């Protein structure tokens, strides 16, 4: 009798489980929010790369209101753990998943193939699938404008640049910065120091100190902390930020300007198209014309009339009548890399592994 009752209870339990399962699989109610998954390499508290991505996510939340529900995952490693994180987001009911670091792409492709009914958005890579897009921004346009400002404000004409890794993205940024600088001061030079890390406050600072010791009076950076900028300011020199508005974070007008990201302008249309069912696979590389990148407010130390000159150049880029990598371009050994009067093709920019004239340092 006892056994029978146990069996009965078990049977009852299993049926409720089946029904519960059935209930879960029923079509979502119309007022249920559309779930969006977001994966960050670091914490949005880093005030740098992931912080700016989270600003984009917040812009999307503000735009859609109750229509979407965002699930964030922070500090996700660039290994198999990334695939697990994406699967968890899919299991939680996310219909579109964003991931913000380069080495996530292989894992995302794998998860995308297993989940054809979910949309995947990968930032900074090149892999794709019918349900997976990749996206990035033309940060080099902002680097050019910041280079103009740096050269204008430099007295020695020696600019320093603390770079993370010799990837095409960083090299492109350095070249654009140098081209901008030399458009204002043809004698300006940009000296590059590689730290071989995206993120290490001590090493970033040491790189900046070495440049300052050699007479650089403006320090620009492609790094994730504010240390290079702070090192420059502590010596009474100037800095150019990156990612977020360093002038407000560091609290000094010696930060002349910061090239910044505007991720929300990609995320919002992507989520909208996923909701409407009009989502299309793409490899997106948006620039000023799409408002994907922007300049922070410029420091009051920069003369007003020169700020206007920078803004005029920005308008020119936004209209598409001119772009940064426009021939003739020579590399720092004197060889011509781009013919006169021609705009460089995207694939050449995306694989850039040489420095323009005026850059001191080696890519390798």
């Amino acid at each position, binding site marked *: 009798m006892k056994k029978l009752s146990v069996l009965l209870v078990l049977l009852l339990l299993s049926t409720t489980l089946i029904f519960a399962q059935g209930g879960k699989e029923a079509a979502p109610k119309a007022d249920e929010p559309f779930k969006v998954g977001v994966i960050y390499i*670091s*914490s949005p*508290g*880093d*005030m740098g790369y992931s912080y700016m991505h989270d600003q984009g996510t917040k812009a999307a939340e503000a735009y859609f209101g109750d229509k979407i529900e965002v699930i964030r995952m922070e500090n996700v490693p660039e290994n198999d753990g990334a695939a697990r994180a994406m699967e968890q987001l899919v299991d939680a009911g996310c219909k579109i998943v964003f991931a913000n670091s380069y080495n996530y792409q292989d894992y995302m492709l794998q998860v995308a193939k297993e989940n054809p009914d979910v949309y995947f958005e990968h930032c900074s890579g090149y892999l794709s699938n019918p349900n997976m897009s990749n996206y990035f921004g033309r940060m080099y346009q902002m680097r050019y404008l910041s280079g103009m400002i740096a050269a204008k404000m430099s007295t020695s004409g020696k600019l*320093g640049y603390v770079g993370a890794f010799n990837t095409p993205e960083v090299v492109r940024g350095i070249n654009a910065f140098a081209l901008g600088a030399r458009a204002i001061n043809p004698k300006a030079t940009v*000296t*590059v*120091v*590689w*730290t*071989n*890390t995206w*993120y*290490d*406050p*001590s*090493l970033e*600072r*040491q*790189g900046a*100190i*070495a*440049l300052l*010791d*050699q007479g*650089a009076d403006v320090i620009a950076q492609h790094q994730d*902390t*504010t*240390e290079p900028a*702070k090192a420059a300011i502590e010596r009474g020199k100037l800095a150019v930020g990156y990612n977020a508005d360093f002038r407000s*974070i*560091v*609290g000094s007008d010696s930060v002349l300007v910061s090239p910044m990201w505007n991720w929300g302008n990609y995320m919002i249309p992507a989520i909208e198209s996923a909701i409407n069912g009009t989502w299309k696979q793409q490899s997106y590389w948006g620039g000023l014309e799409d408002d994907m990148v922007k300049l922070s407010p410029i420091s009051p130390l920069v003369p007003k009339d020169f700020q206007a000159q920078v803004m005029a150049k920005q308008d020119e880029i936004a209209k598409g009548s001119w772009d940064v990598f426009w021939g003739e371009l020579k590399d720092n050994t004197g060889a011509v890399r781009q013919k006169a009067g021609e705009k460089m093709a995207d694939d050449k920019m995306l694989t850039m592994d040489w420095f323009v004239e005026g850059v*001191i*340092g*080696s890519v*390798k």
Partner: protein
Amino acid sequence: MDFITKLLAATIAMGTSLTFATIGEIYTEKTGVLNLGMEGTMLMGALTAFASTLASGSLYVGLVVAMLTGGMLSLIHAFLCVTMRANQVVSGLAITMFGTGLANFLGQRLGPVSNNYNLVGMNLPKKFDNIAIPLLKDIPVLGAFFDVSILTYLLYLIIPFAWFFMYKTKHGLAIRAVGESPKTAAAMGLSVSRLRYLYTIIGGMFAGLGGACLSLSFTPSWNDGMTGGKGWIVIALVIFATWNPGKAVIGTLVFGGITSLQFSLQAAGIKMVIPTQFLAFAPYLITFFTLSVMTILNQNRKGAFASPSALGSSFAIDDK
């Protein structure tokens, strides 16, 4: 000449943090306790120093709090390794995992309300600035030693004292005895457990101080994982110094010098013969080299450069 002076100045600034932690770890290891928790302890020191300085407005409060935090983390290690006789490697690794995780967790919760409780992006009202000693600072090259922060001057006092205390006092002899042969030390009437507890905690306090040097002086800020593996370099430096606090400074200058040199060469626009990636792992290569040379030297000179014999092993008074 100017190039070398500036290189030396950069090396000293970076190396101060490393030297504090190295001296602490040498004392811990001399009593026979291996503490691999340095990375986590330094990071917690950096965090608590920054947070308490921000809250109190006093850099010295920051230093004290960092030392207390370091001491407390190492107390956990001492309890596990000395009292519970747990595996020292496992316990040390656990301290590092715990310390780094907790520091990054608290870093986003101990900040002011105005910054969303985040410490990242906060700036200190003041930091330990360099103080130049007139005349001495004008000595070519060596002048770099006399234009440093007060923390580095403190180190100038601590290094000779740490050496003297270890090798020229009775208490130092007791420390070494406990690390070489705990059984003999116990037979002599020394309390092995008490000495191990004491110097594990003191070692942790020094590591906390090393962390504070970063967040209050060298890179005055809080960033997730800002020690960037310095706690591991410390473990290598202890070996490089052959467990001699007097030699710790040489290791710091060599290790720190290599890092500074690779940046200085790049900044000077000197065509790099050696790739920067190579220089980045060179310190560890030197550690391999030191370990090999030490083994060879020890065969000829009967253990003059050997690690403390009882390093890494637990001890209880009733051990046979």
